[in-house]
């Protein structure tokens, strides 16, 4: 179905024929715009930004690009088209028709899943709202804003589900999503990682690479849900999420590229000399990767989780690419290997697959992250520099799960408190490292110019040249 842009809220859910819901969302809309004004990208309301807007949910509706003011961005409600006779593909209800309404017994659980997912969307906009002031280029500024408006749209997607399917509770949750604030001591965002600061562009790129990739895996497993409106919503969100991953991966990649170029020019790997030359040395990049990898890892929750098992058996949340997996999709008799800390050793043991679904999703994510790291390493190798980025061990710097109470070195050794205290500054960004990175963050807004610490991209957005005026400040 085409998206109806003549309506106040663009949608492909036939909103005009559900007046109650339409009114509820039209009441929420001004509150959302107020929130965007307060907490959206700082100082940006009057900018004309070269943004991509979805004009239809089919593949041809994706390439609509134009300069728009962000407050005028057509945030709306888009679900991938409904499949007729769709069946539940996993869990106890496998083979039944998917649900178009929320079954009473799963109401509160589903609401919690949707609220938790929804809460991350405005949270990341809040975390990133000051970054525009230190953009390394117009191109990057545009990418930041694209990510921001799409996170805003993801909030819309979740609020639609809350309003359409959870009645008064849902409307109250919708309001609360606009009231919590990232990092607020009294009313913080739900997940810890979303209360951390995104203080600089390197952190932003790392966040979009590691943490938005968690978003991809969470959305992909919710896109399998037996609750069809949730599944269809998440499926559409995934298409948008892809751009965020792209921003992160090539952002870090371009920083690596620039550093390697300067290392070759100066023929040195000396950190002090490289910092004097204004690029981020590779060991510091590795520390940022370690940090973001470990913090995002925690978002998947405990290795063994009865909640995850319940979500699966009840059909609320599937596995990544559930329908492509070759098993019975019930997992009553399957096992999965998880790591465990036993005394001074890290062992692996087999547990019921159902209880290890968090770990399984984390492992899928790690495989994907590793593939991205491999591509970063190819950038290094191409420049002839002898350095290799490595992913730290799964147990490194964890606050949740089996490894929360122990210290694990990046190479997987269990280490003492003393050694951790002594060594951790070699593995995680120190205050000095962060200060240095922060010192590089100057604003570059001349079309085609890039800050000294980052290489230009190999191509522009939507085949525009790299020196295109992606943002007009008016």
């Amino acid at each position, binding site marked *: 179905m085409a998206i109806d842009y003549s309506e106040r809220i663009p949608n492909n859910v036939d909103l005009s024929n559900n007046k109650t819901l339409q009114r509820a969302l039209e009441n929420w809309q001004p509150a959302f715009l107020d929130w965007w004004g307060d907490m959206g990208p700082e100082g940006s309301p009057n900018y004309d930004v070269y943004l991509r807007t979805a004009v239809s949910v089919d593949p*041809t*509706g994706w390439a609509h690009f134009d300069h728009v003011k962000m407050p005028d961005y057509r945030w709306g409600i888009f679900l991938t*088209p409904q499949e007729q006779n769709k069946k539940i593909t996993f869990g106890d209800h496998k083979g039944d028709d998917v649900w178009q309404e929320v079954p009473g017994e799963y109401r509160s659980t589903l609401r919690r899943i949707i609220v938790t997912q929804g809460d991350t969307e405005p949270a990341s906009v809040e975390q990133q709202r000051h970054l525009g002031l230190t953009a390394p280029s117009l191109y990057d500024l545009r990418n930041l804003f694209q990510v921001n408006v799409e996170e805003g749209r993801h909030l819309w997607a979740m609020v639609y589900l809350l309003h359409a399917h959870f009645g008064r509770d849902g409307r109250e949750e919708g309001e609360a999503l606009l009231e919590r604030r990232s990092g607020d001591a009294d009313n913080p965002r739900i997940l810890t990682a979303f209360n951390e600061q995104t203080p600089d562009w390197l952190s932003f790129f790392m966040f979009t690479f590691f943490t938005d990739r968690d978003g*991809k895996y969470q959305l992909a497993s919710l896109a399998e849900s037996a609750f069809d409106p949730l599944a269809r919503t998440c499926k559409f969100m995934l298409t948008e999420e*892809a*751009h965020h*991953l*792209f921003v992160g991966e*090539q952002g870090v990649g371009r920083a690596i590229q620039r550093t390697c170029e300067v290392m070759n020019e100066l023929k040195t790997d000396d950190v002090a000399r490289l910092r004097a030359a204004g690029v981020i040395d590779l060991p510091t990049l590795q520390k940022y990767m370690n940090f973001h990898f470990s913090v995002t890892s925690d978002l998947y929750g405990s290795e063994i989780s009865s909640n995850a098992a319940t979500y699966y058996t009840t059909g609320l949340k599937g596995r990544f690419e559930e329908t492509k997996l070759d098993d019975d999709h019930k997992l009553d008799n399957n096992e999965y290997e998880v790591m465990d800390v036993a005394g001074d050793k890290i062992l692996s043991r087999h547990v019921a697959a159902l209880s290890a679904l968090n770990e399984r999703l984390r492992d899928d994510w790690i495989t994907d992250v590793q593939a991205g790291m491999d591509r970063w390493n190819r950038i290094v190798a191409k420049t002839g520099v002898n350095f290799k980025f490595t992913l730290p061990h799964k147990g490194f710097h964890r606050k949740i799960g089996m490894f929360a109470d122990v210290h694990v070195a990046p190479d997987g050794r269990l280490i003492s408190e003393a050694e951790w205290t002594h060594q951790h500054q070699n593995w995680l960004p120190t205050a000095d490292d962060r200060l240095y990175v922060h010192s590089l963050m100057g604003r570059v807004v001349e079309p085609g110019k890039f800050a000294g610490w980052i290489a230009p991209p190999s191509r522009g957005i939507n085949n525009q040249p790299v020196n295109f005026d992606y943002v007009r400040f008016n």
Partner: protein
Amino acid sequence: MNAPQEHDIARQHLIDPEICIRCNTCEEMCPVDAITHDSRNYVVKFDVCNWCNACIGPCPTGAIDSIRNVLRAQPFSVEEQLTWDVLPDTRELDSMPVSAAPSPAGSETPAEVQQITDVATAGHGGPALAPWSASHPYVNLYSAKNPVSATVTGNFRLTAEDASSDIHHIVLDFGATPFPVLEGQSIGIIPPGLDENGKPHLLRMYSVASPRDGERPHYNNLSLTVKRVVEDHEGQPARGVASNYVCDLAKGDKVQVTGPYGSTYLMPNHPGASIMMICTGTGSAPMRAMTERRRRRMDMKEGGDLMLFFGARSPGELPYFGPLQKLPEDFIDINFAFSRVPGEPKQYVQDLIRKRSDKVFQMLKDDNTYIYICGLKGMETGVLEAFRDICRAHGADWETLRGDMLRKARFHIETY
């Protein structure tokens, strides 16, 4: 397509592993599951990709938009692509022209089929593509050297006894032999015997009039709409060899069939797609196939409008007049034009198109509407002129719109 086998060059759709970020969007979008991945690369299966391009727009990096020329018999395999860190360098092949559209069966389109097709589709004003959501067609499974034998299971006259034209509905059954067709495709029929030069008859092409799941659902059969040819284009008496052979077939007779043919005049499959059909006479065959496909799926409420403009001399000469009239109005918007009804002014399809100008213009503009024209060449000019006038009246430029529709594979013509 007449190039020797060793120069049978095809385009291969590839993904640039250096740029791809493994976001999975392309694999998710692909309607025919042509994209797969391992822990290293995302890759496209050469033999499955039908160039619908559904993956191109959503790709955030542009990695998806990579192409190399290959020998059709030696494409880059999935296994090979999975080992790549970079795309292969361009080769001499990449500067050579590509052969005809891919044929999954590996056999070639017969020259006469190509010739008829070229003439029939000339009205586009440019090369045609299949709609992005069209199903993947099988083509050239059976050649004149290797035809399949079908059994006639039905043959009845569609036009009234007193009508000037004799149009037949023929049902052919393929038994256990696979003969997959899509709405809009054609088949070839080879009349038995020899022509006046003592050579076997050339094949004749007929559009399939039944949907993909058979004239009777879930039977391996199909139907044709064939007009008995009794005069040539100039109106001189001439007995069409093939059409008379087909119209005279009896139940149980065996027919030599080739094909299927046609890889672009196909219907969109996505829910919400609208279809405008404009036809005369036996040009109604593909329209009946598409309409019947949609009718059988009516319960699914997939949305999208159907609009039909159908011209004939009189109701008695209009194939499928009775069944068409029984279709509900909210399913299909039918507009009949009759040019020889005593006591009434002559009406042609273009007259009705003009009458419905507002809706027609809205559909011409709508990216979700696909337009199909099939019938006599004479109709084509009138219809295109009507489109041009309607555009002008709405402040739009027909040529621009036509170019846009062609690029989006929304405009399909087959006239003879």
